[in-house]
């Protein structure tokens, strides 16, 4: 379940998204920062690329946890299979969230590229 996700490590190429920081309009997301108390949102002045990088790191963490547990399930050392299924769930959700954010950012970028002077 989680192995195909290794392919997504290619997502690190996303760092090319730092181009998005040029979009000042996105800093309008500052208003959102107040509404979110997640650890990823440290302060209102953090740029989008930083947030994305931090998010990707945490996604990578959940993937790794799920992968480790999958190995433990396979070799029979995991007493509680529910731990694995829940970690896999969490990894899937984190992945979906990342993709949703990435797609939104890409949409915004393309929208701006389509703008006529």
């Amino acid at each position: 379940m989680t192995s195909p996700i290794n392919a997504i490590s290619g997502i690190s190429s996303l760092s090319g998204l730092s181009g998005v920081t040029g979009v000042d309009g996105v800093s309008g997301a500052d208003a959102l920062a107040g509404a979110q108390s997640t650890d990823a949102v440290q302060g209102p002045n953090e740029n989008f690329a930083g947030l994305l990088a931090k998010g990707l790191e945490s996604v990578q963490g959940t993937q790794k946890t799920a992968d480790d547990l999958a190995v433990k399930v396979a070799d029979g050392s995991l007493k509680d299979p529910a731990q694995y299924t829940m970690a896999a769930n969490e990894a899937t959700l984190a992945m979906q969230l990342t993709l949703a954010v990435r797609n939104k950012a890409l949409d915004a970028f393309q929208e701006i590229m389509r703008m006529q002077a």
Partner: protein
Amino acid sequence: MSTFNAIGVASTGVTVYRKWLDAVSDNIANMNNVSRTSEKAFQARYVVAQEAADGNGAQVGGVAFGSAEGVLTYDPQNPLADSKGYVRRPDIDLGSQMAQMMMAQRAYQANLAVVDRAKESYTAAINLGK
């Protein structure tokens, strides 16, 4: 853990109730043990559930043990019987263990239901952004 906290918290609950089920199965497995009167009877295991140290969910704080004295039973045929014909059996009530098993099972399922609902909710929130 931080992004999808409900799942992490529910998983601590799942672990606690899994351990309770383990303890109950241990008790039922050893329910009919017989020991000499000079020895200890099998002591029932009870998990001590408490709030998690980091405040997120529950944890098993330790294990409490039931009576080591058990119940003295007259069974002179038993090879373990003492000179007066008594043996020691654990003081475990099958009815109570069964009730505990049902409670642990239902609570385990309840925690998994929380995981299920949390996943549904998170998925809905993510789909909102698509």
